[in-house]
């Protein structure tokens, strides 16, 4: 089961894509280490992870078919 991960701002620029596919993880912590394996260049970047358009914490479970997004620090306004 794969999930779509949308990426924005500096992260999108860094990996040259606006989204990628990834194997579903149980929770955010394991998703993060998965992402770091695929894209080691993201290791030093600060970002939050949204699950279904809500900010998540490391222990949050990831539901089936969730929409994941990697969000660098906001800079609107």
């Amino acid at each position: 089961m794969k999930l779509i991960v949308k990426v924005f701002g500096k992260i999108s620029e860094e990996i040259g894509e606006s989204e990628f596919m990834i194997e579903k993880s149980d929770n955010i912590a394991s998703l993060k280490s998965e992402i770091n394996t695929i894209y080691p260049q993201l290791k030093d970047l600060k970002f939050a992870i949204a699950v279904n358009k809500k900010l998540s914490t490391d222990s949050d479970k990831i539901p089936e078919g969730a929409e994941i997004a990697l969000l660098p620090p906001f800079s609107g306004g």
Partner: protein
Amino acid sequence: MEKTRKPKNIFVEGAISPEKIAKSIANHATNHEIGGHSIFLGQVRADAKEGGKVTAIAYTAYEEMALQQAFEIREAVFEKYPLTCMHIYHSLGEVKVGEICLFVFTSSKHRKAAISACEELVERIKNELPIWGKELVSNDTSVWKENT
């Protein structure tokens, strides 16, 4: 019956024109309960960067999430202050230096509610909406903006 509000689009392609702001103000002339309006406008600065000056900011957003967050902020601020009206507009795409990229507009019977609500909205918009500004520099480089 409770009035239910739905998420409104806050995004505008490119800069927000002074004419749009004037029209928005004029639209409130028919509401005779309003005693005060508070407006905040964000304008793009020509900050000095390594190798040049900022010439524009290119804005992108996680639009669906931003609209949902904006809706929740809107509801919370309506709950907290006795407001008559509230409008939020943010640019997407390129906005040149000197142009307006954010327009927050609150109206109330009395000034204090309008002023406090506007200030709170601006802070929350900057901190909570998934929007990113990429500063385009005169030497053809770019820098990702970070709100402080």
